[in-house]
């Protein structure tokens, strides 16, 4: 048995060293054939399938096989692929993940190709291209799209409550009394006997419609849950971004904001966290259980697609420092370091990042492509469908965005912050309990 195992180990080692060599195989081998490409969003699959077809038409010796996997399985399957040698040549990458992948040498740096092929990095929306330069100064992806946060609201409910669209566009918020944002949310809340949240006799334990929907505790980033509020106070997740090494969940400013946020559920204006396990927030909005939902621009299609509900989109409220704030997240396409089709993969990534493909994506009106010109085309495509997306584009135009926190150890940070935030948002623990969680988080960086 020992001998057999030894033989297997030798064979495996040979196979490994062979596959390691193949990265630098002759360009004739690596520039044609079939390459595999993964993405997680099913809504975007048709757009990218068309990109792949167009790409093969222009490069007949390269075929692209697209696989879509749900977000929940995407990253574990990808990791298994890296270890087992079956990972896709090219895949959609996320800011929260790529740092660790780059550090473990799973990503191919594409600086040389970008230089050689004269890719114009200034054509992308500001900051997007820089996000994909790792801590080692090398580029690990070309940007494909971006997203910001906005307030989806039920037009009929607002009209019934006498809240105008102008009011929605000029909402203000502060952590002390919640500003006009809390007033509107309270007014839109209706209990089972028809009393509004700001009327005397409102029964907070028997609410029929909540003013504001709840997606979850928001774990480490609070991307759609609370970051559009907390980050208007001047607070930010980390000491610097990207590649911060210190998190700030212990800041009293942040804890005050979270205390206010958790208070909404206590007052009956937002569902209790425990009732949100299960059905998706967007679906409960469609079922008429909430009047306003704060959510990301990638959800436009879903919210405006529900039959029988008129949906409007308002920008997030103006904070105490006189500005709005929205997390700015962007995806990119990266190449696996173990690919056997290096040259073909680079060609495909460059095509995905080009106007040819991003205009196709824009025309489908599902997400905002990374190229400025293509972003504008997407906004037009949304307008043609009767959807005003200025609430999302305004953030980029007015530079009121802040980046998704990019650091090392993101999975571990999430592991610590998820239960800690759940405890705060569900009212089980005071916001000051986040100080202890923050110490645990920062200990990861020592």
């Amino acid at each position, binding site marked *: 048995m020992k001998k057999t195992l030894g033989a297997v180990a030798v064979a495996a080692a040979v196979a490994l060293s062979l596959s390691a060599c193949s990265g630098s195989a002759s360009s004739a081998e690596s520039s044609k054939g079939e390459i595999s490409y993964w993405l997680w969003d099913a809504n975007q699959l048709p757009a990218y399938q068309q990109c792949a077809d167009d790409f093969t038409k222009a490069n007949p010796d390269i075929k692209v096989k697209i696989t879509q996997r749900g977000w929940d399985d995407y990253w574990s399957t990808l990791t298994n692929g890296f270890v087992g040698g079956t990972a896709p040549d090219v895949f959609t990458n996320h800011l929260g993940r790529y740092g660790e992948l780059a550090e473990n040498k799973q990503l191919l740096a594409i600086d040389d190709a970008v230089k050689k092929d004269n890719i114009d990095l200034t054509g992308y929306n500001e900051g997007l291209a820089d996000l994909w330069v790792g801590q080692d100064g090398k580029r690990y992806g070309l940007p494909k799209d971006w997203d910001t946060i906005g307030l989806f609201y039920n037009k009929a409910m607002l009209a019934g409550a006498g809240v105008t669209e102008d009011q929605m566009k000029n909402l203000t918020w502060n952590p002390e009394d919640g500003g006009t944002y809390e007033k509107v949310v309270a007014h839109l809340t209706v209990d089972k006997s028809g009393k509004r949240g700001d009327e005397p006799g409102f029964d907070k334990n028997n609410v029929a419609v909540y003013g504001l929907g709840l997606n979850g505790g928001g774990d480490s980033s609070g991307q759609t849950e609370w970051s559009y509020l907390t980050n208007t106070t001047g607070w930010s997740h980390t000491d610097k971004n990207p590649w911060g090494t210190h998190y700030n969940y212990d800041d009293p400013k942040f804890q005050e904001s979270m205390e206010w946020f958790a208070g909404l559920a206590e007052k009956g204006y937002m569902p209790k966290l425990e009732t949100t396990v299960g*059905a998706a927030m967007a679906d409960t909005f469609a079922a008429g259980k909430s009047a306003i939902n704060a959510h990301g621009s990638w959800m436009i299609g879903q919210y405006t697609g529900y039959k029988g509900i008129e949906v409007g989109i308002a920008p997030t409220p103006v904070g105490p420092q006189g500005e709005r704030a929205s997390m700015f997240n962007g995806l990119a396409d990266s190449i696996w370091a173990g690919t056997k089709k290096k040259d073909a993969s680079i060609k495909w990534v460059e095509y995905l990042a080009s106007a040819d493909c991003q205009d196709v994506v824009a025309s489908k009106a599902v997400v905002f492509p990374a190229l400025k010109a293509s972003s504008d085309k997407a906004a037009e495509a949304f307008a043609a469908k009767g959807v005003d997306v200025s609430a999302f584009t305004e953030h980029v135009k007015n530079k009121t965005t802040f980046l998704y926190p990019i650091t090392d150890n993101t999975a571990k940070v999430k592991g610590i912050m998820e239960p800690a935030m759940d405890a705060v948002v569900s009212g089980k623990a005071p916001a000051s309990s986040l100080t202890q969680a923050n110490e645990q988080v920062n200990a990861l960086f020592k």
Partner: protein
Amino acid sequence: MTTLAKHSAPVSPAPDKPKPYGGLRRFGDLKIALLFIAPAMIGFIVFYVVPTIRGVYLSFTEYNILGDPEWVGVDNYTAIAKDPLFWNSLAVTGQYVFLNIVLQTALALGLALLMHQVAKSTIIRGALLMPYLMSNVIAALLWFWMLDYQIGVVNQFIEWAGLPRVAFFGSEEWAIPTQAVINTWRHMGYTALLIFAGLQAIPGHVYEVAKLDGASAFQTFRKITIPLLRPVLVLVLVVTVIGSFQVFDTVAVTTAGGPVNATRVIQYYIYQRAFTESDFGYGSAIAVILFLILALVAFIQMKFLKGNESDLD
């Protein structure tokens, strides 16, 4: 491959004269026995022994799967001893196992008695097994939707009955009991079948004697059925307790450890540390601890409930 060939070689030449009934003959049996055991043995070694040894080795390393394991001695174990989430996972798992085993064993025993004495139809006996034929994930998702707070059918009935809706999966108090009951529902038919087989092994004459002596139904159950069923009950307990400790799929597809840490059971915590947070050394160390706990629990059960002795002798 070579191992197989080696064992099969001596088998082919047929013995031309009867061998004395001695050591040599027994040795020949051993070789044939090994040949038949080999397929199972190879699987056992490749899929159980080697991974277990590797797991024990990894538990002494820092390993993120993409790099190389780095030896850190007992660092993982000392960190686990100070990890509140590990102790929480033990408490949560303990709560789950207690609820699940008590309910499951009681209900399965009742069902087995019914199968033995009342429901003799094969169809009814078969129907009891139905939930067990369903995959764990499907059963969990089915109940996840039926028990949903907003749109679940169960909460609709509860509301019609004039009671407040219950966040079966969302509230910290309900999450573990809910999952314990779901898995009880799924497994009790199978457990009942095992106990039922044990009941059938009890000879009928002891019941006749009890009847002649004027024992009541309850006395018969307590003094005859339970003692004679003990070896089977112990086996069932050992198997179901080990299975119950390893609850994972139900949690993974529904609450994923939440709300807060209410369902972060030990297997889910191992998965989280190893596969989500790429800390395979730490995850392996918890797995080794779980292995030791289960071995100890099984040992205690066998020792104190005298599972390998029968009162029938």
